[in-house]
């Protein structure tokens, strides 16, 4: 899951060898696509969904994404965040975490964030959120292997714990 135009389809194609259309504009993907990948010898199904800003859909494409999430209660969710616009990506990630899904966060477009002089302490972010956080540049493939290897480390997190780790809400 992730916002429009953060690179979800690029990940999907890289991981499954599929040919989902990728473009540099939001709204390229309007339907879901299923594919298979191997993790440590096991076949795992992966689903590419349209981008959405929140779990409260505002168009038909976002509808598809949110419905897919709610239909697959046992899914692990790779949440792709545009690292140069991290805050609003975290909003969606928190929503998904709050619904009890185990999440892995890909801080994608790491190169763009770097160019914009935005520095993110991924390790600290991982400590606070309690889920794996991996910097990636999907287009060139950086970080993808690590992302896959960290899938097994994720578990549902109580949002209370995140609040505590962040030092409270006040």
């Amino acid at each position: 899951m992730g916002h429009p135009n953060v690179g979800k389809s690029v990940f999907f194609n890289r991981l499954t060898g599929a040919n989902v259309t990728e473009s540099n504009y939001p709204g390229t993907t309007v339907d879901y696509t299923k594919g298979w990948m191997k993790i440590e010898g096991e076949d795992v199904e992966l689903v590419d969904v349209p981008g959405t800003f929140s779990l409260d859909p505002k168009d038909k494409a976002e509808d598809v994404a949110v419905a897919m999430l709610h239909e697959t209660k046992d899914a692990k969710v790779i949440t792709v965040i545009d690292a140069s616009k991290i805050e609003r990506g975290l909003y969606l990630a928190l929503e998904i975490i709050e619904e009890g899904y185990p999440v892995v966060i890909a801080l994608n477009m790491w190169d763009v964030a770097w160019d914009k002089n935005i520095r993110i302490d991924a390790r600290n972010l991982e400590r606070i959120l309690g889920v794996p956080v991996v910097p990636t540049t999907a287009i060139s493939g950086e970080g993808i292997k690590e992302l896959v290897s960290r899938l097994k480390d994720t578990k549902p997190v109580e949002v209370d714990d995140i609040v505590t780790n962040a030092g409270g809400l006040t």
Partner: protein
Amino acid sequence: MTLSLGERWTLIDRISKETVTFGKYEHTLKDAVGELTVKPLTGIPVAIAIMYCFWSVFGSFAGTLMTDGFFVKLFDGYWLPWIQEAFPGQGSWLYAIMVDAGGFESGEFVLSDNCFEAFGALTSGLFVAIGVVLPAIFIFYLMLALLEDVGYMPRLAVLLDTVLHRVGLHGYAIVPTILSLGCNVPGVTATRILETKKQRFIMMTLLAIFIPCGAQIGIMEEVVPNLLGWILLYLIIGYFIFGYILNKIVPGKAPEFLIDVPPYRKPLLNNVSKKVWGRIAGFFKVALPFVMLGCAIVSLLYLLGVIQFIGDLLAPIFVGWFGVPKETAGPLVAAFLRKDLAVAQLSVIEMTEYQLITAVVLVSIYFPCVATFAMMLKEGWKELIAAIGVLTIVVFAYGGMIHLIGILLGVA
């Protein structure tokens, strides 16, 4: 526990304070170019230049180089004479459907001498699919993929936002519109990025009626190259007139749109080639069977006299209302099944230029192709029925209007 909206943002604030440092941002060349292509004063000339470039590459590659320079020679010079010889049963109905319906000259059966006039599935069907449509959609999708991957599309959307608001849409409607110029099927799917039912309905209807697909444009480029500009102009004008009317009568909202304009990126060869290949393959999986089947069915209906019968029946309407010659009735009826070949058929009928423009515009705004039709059905049958209603009205209203304009200009 779940958080309230406010709490969630407070938490995000805290997290980002802990983990993110924002350095000083430098204005780069990329940003400068980005701004130049979005601001109207510089952006509009750039957009026109890009479109012009797109257009001339399309015409010279697909029309001049590939079709005229190579495929016409190959098909008319070698394939047609060979298959006319090799296929058994000259003059039989199977021969007519598959190879060449031929013609009668002073009572004698003669074979056609080019692949546009043979109208067999293995001659015209194959020639249109491979010789005309393939180069057209190849170059179209290649250039589209480049524009997409560079990140130009969202900027075009921003530029055209004001204009498209007049027809109940917003800038983002340019994405389904441009996709439809390749093939209406993905165009219809792309309407899902529009927020409301009203917008999706307007968009889908306008696409199905006024946007000719790559195959049609390829054929027009081939058989009526000097009239293509006028034909497209009429289609664009129609798009806006009927969009404006639909916006007034269709209930519902047409909200503003918010868009993230992504940074410009260098397109990756790998992705561009994969995308072009995928789209062409998709197009041919859907289009080629329809093209061949359509060819065969049209020939069969001709042989059975069905098309002549309906044509004669409707001829008064065509002549009186649309101002086109009686002979066009046949091709115009056949266009229900085969839009692209209908254009080729029209081009050999004797008529004035203005009549030809009218006839080709009519073919374009007619019933969408079967694949598009099926796709629209998937998006909702109520909308499809409403769209067909609109389409019928538009064909008569706009067709009549073009005729009227011709009368006023003194050319019809």
